[in-house]
Structure formats: structure tokens, C-alpha cells
């Protein structure tokens, strides 16, 4: 049996002090505890694999977004929107579609014992936060890949072309915030009784700053006559939000997993 030789990650994690002397002394096959990066990679890979097989989240989210645009057309009785209105419709739709993904994020783990499997492993528990947030981020990006062109096609008056690079920046910044809060709230809600209800109820108020930042930043991009660049203060707000909640999520996540 080959021995995996690997350097232990710098992160002073719990596995750093695993007693390996006993193992080595007896000649038992030594397996070096997996560093956090590899664990995150393994988790993310599993996550994406399951999603690819079941297609539970992404197609639903995307379809929901497109359908919502159609509903908005009839609800507003307008064929094209611009400026604040357009930004508002886009962000509300993205947010609600994201809730669908949030609701499903930990369901497979909770129902099939995935939490236990992870908790039994000698790994840093924040790895799950990171992996799940990255997965949710991936789902959101794919969602936007479908939703934004659909929006441009169905409802948006001014053309998307020029605004696209700036829009991308805003989307990514906001998505990080949604991913962090979404993962946190999903982990919180999945083990409660009203899990499908509590998720959105908790997430929506928490994400209001993201909606504010996102909508205010994209509104000039959808300007009727020409596209303006997003005001820097909103990009900063989004960035600050991502940073603060990223850190907080990292600090509290462990407490959600343990028993």
C-alpha cells in the first residue's frame, strides 16, 4: 500500500496535531490528513456531480426566472423597461430564483446522512461552508447566464451589449453575498421543521442591502438613452457586505453543524 506523502496545509487546523507517531511506529499505512483545499475540492466536486445527475437546482432556478419575466410583462403591462424599473425587475427575479437554490442546498445532505459523513472526517468544518457557498455561486452564475439574456430579450428596452462588462462585475459581487448568506441560512433552515419557509424568510431581509446595492448599481446601466457606469459607492457597499458576512459566516458556521 503506497503512502501518500503530502505537506500538511499551513492552516493550523485540528488535523495538524493528529497523533501519527503511533501509526508510523506500527508500520500501519499512514494517511496524511487531507488539507482544507483538497477537502473543499472534494466536497465541491461531489456537490456538482450530484447536481449534474439530479438537475434539481439550476434548471428550476433558470426556468423560474424566465417565467417570472413573462409574469412581469403581464403584471406591469409593459413591453419594455429601463432604468430603475429594469434594475428592480431583474434583481427581484434573481433573488427569488436564488431562494429556490438556497432551499435545495443542504436537502440531499440532510436526507441522506451527508452531514454525518462529513462530521466524522478529520477535517476543518469550514470547508463545508466554503464548498457549499462556491457551489451556490456556481449555480447563480449559470442562472444568470440564462436569465440575463432572457431579460435582455423579453423585457429590457436598451440593449445589453455595452453594459455587459459592468453588469458582470455587479452580478459577481452581489452573487458572492447571496452565496454566503444563502449557505448560512440554508444550513440554519434545513434542520428545522418549516425548512422551505424559513429559508426565504430569513434570507430576504438579510439580502436587502444586496438588492439595494445591486439595483442601484445596475440602474444606470439600463439607462434609456445611454449606459452609465455603476456608482462606485454601491460596488463598495456590496464588497463590504461580502466581506463582513463572509467573515461572520466563517466564524459561526461550525456551530450549525455540530451537535
Amino acid at each position: 500500500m503506497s503512502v501518500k506523502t503530502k505537506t500538511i496545509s499551513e492552516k493550523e487546523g485540528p488535523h495538524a496535531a493528529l497523533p501519527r507517531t503511533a501509526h508510523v511506529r506500527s508500520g500501519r499505512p499512514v494517511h496524511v490528513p487531507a488539507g482544507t483545499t483538497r477537502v473543499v475540492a472534494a466536497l465541491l466536486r461531489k456537490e456538482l456531480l450530484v447536481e449534474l445527475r439530479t438537475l434539481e437546482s439550476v434548471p428550476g432556478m433558470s426556468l423560474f426566472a424566465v417565467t417570472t419575466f413573462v409574469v412581469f410583462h403581464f403584471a406591469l403591462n409593459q413591453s419594455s423597461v429601463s432604468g430603475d424599473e429594469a434594475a428592480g425587475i431583474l434583481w427581484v427575479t434573481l433573488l427569488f430564483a436564488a431562494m429556490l437554490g438556497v432551499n435545495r442546498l443542504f436537502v440531499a445532505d440532510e436526507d441522506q446522512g451527508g452531514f454525518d459523513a462529513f462530521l466524522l472526517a478529520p477535517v476543518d468544518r469550514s470547508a463545508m461552508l466554503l464548498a457549499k457557498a462556491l457551489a451556490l455561486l456556481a449555480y447563480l452564475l449559470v442562472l444568470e447566464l440564462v436569465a440575463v439574456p432572457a431579460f435582455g430579450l423579453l423585457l429590457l428596452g436598451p440593449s445589453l451589449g455595452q453594459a455587459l462588462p459592468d453588469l458582470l462585475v455587479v452580478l459577481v459581487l452581489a452573487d458572492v453575498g447571496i452565496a454566503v448568506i444563502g449557505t448560512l441560512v440554508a444550513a440554519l433552515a434545513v434542520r428545522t421543521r418549516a425548512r422551505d419557509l424559513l429559508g426565504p424568510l430569513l434570507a430576504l431581509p438579510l439580502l436587502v442591502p444586496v438588492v439595494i446595492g445591486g439595483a442601484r448599481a445596475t440602474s444606470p446601466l439600463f439607462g434609456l438613452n445611454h449606459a452609465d457606469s455603476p456608482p462606485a459607492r454601491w460596488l463598495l457597499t456590496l464588497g463590504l457586505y461580502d466581506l463582513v458576512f463572509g467573515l461572520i459566516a466563517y466564524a459561526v458556521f461550525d456551530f450549525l453543524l455540530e451537535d
Partner: protein
Amino acid sequence: MADRGVSTIVSGPIAADTESIEGEPALRLEGLARHYGEREALSDVSLSLSAGQTLVVFGPNGAGKTTLLRVLATLLRPHAGGVRVLGKSLPDEAWAVRGRIGLLGHEPLLYRELSARENLRFHARLHGVGEERVEELLGAVNMENRAKEPLRTLSRGMVQRVAIARAVLHDPELLLLDEPRANLDPAASELVEPLIGAASRRTRVISSHDPSGGLSEADLVLGLRDGRPALLREAADVDPGEIAELYR
């Protein structure tokens, strides 16, 4: 030093390895208690189990068997009392023993959409174990031919076999088994014997409903009732009648 090549699948660690340098027993519980709200799920459980020995836990449903196993697995924190597993005290040093414990619970802890191989590889990565080990175990539980199919297409017996493979994937010193032979036919039961049976020479804690079968495997017997130890004795001194009493 014994050849540790292929034989590691069949026989587990040598008994002496499972003790820490001080020669402590593999398990030492003193007044372990865990409550669930107002109810005592476990109370006043004390015992000592030497390395390589097998503890079998009997008791009716709700007696606390699963809770005990989960506490030992570091999945649940003890609310009172002292718990030392493999020389480390829980919950503070739980991270130090996590990689050395294998749990086989009611749930297989596997993803239904993934195949046996994918599931085992995932666990292997979590534990820092190489992929060759996955192949070895797939062979040992006779699942090589069905290793590519999603678990939801397999029978319960097969899933149980993969779950057993998962439990011993990282070659744990301590095995915690919650009714391990459920869903296994006699052939499969024999198949997994070297991995989780007495021959594996790992320290084991087994939760069982089968008085005669369980007793034969045990070195130490613990009978639980409403979370309290109703019976704690060397297996040799226990007869099946006393175990049946617990279920009354």
C-alpha cells in the same frame, strides 16, 4: 515488523497500537450523561474497554444505544461526565480522534445518486486515503462489478456492503456498529466478517438486538434501559435470559 501490504484489508491494527503511549484503555466512560431537553437520553454510563475488545450494547428502542454510539463517534457532545476515546477526552480533543473512528449507523451515509466508487472516493478524499484503498475494499465486499451504478439502483444489502466499506475505508482503530448485519444475507455477512468482525481485531462497540448472536461476539456487555445502565458485565458472566429481561 509484520508485512502490512495486502493483509491490512483482512486484519486490522495490532491491539497494542490502539493504546496511547500511557497504555490507556481504548474507551473510558465515567458518568456519561446526555440530555434531550428535560429527558435524560443517557445518564450515569461508566465503563472501560480495552483495546481490541468488543463491547455489545443491548436495550429496547429508545434506550440510548444510538445516542451512545453517536457520542463515541464525536457526533454528539457529552453533556456531563468524562469520555475518553482512544486516549483523548471528548469533546475537547474530538478532532484528534475523528480520523481513527469508523461509524456504521442506520443510515449508510452515502449519496444515492452517486455510484459506489464515487461515494467511496469522496470519503477517501475526506479522510486523506488513497484511491487504491477504494478499489481494494470494493473487491473485499464483492462490489467491483456494480461499482459504477448509482446506489439508488442497488439492493439494500448491496448498499449496506458499500456502507461497511465506507466505515473501514480509513482503517479505523475503533469501530462503532449499529446493528451491522441488518440487510445482509448470510453470504454477505460472512464476506464482511474480516472487515468488521472479531477477526478484524479492532476495538468494537456494537449495538445489537440479537441476544444470542450479539453475546457470542462480546467481551463486555452493556444493557441500557431509559438511558441508564441496567447491566454491565463481562460477557462470560451473562446469560441470554438477563438480556431478554431488558426488553420487558
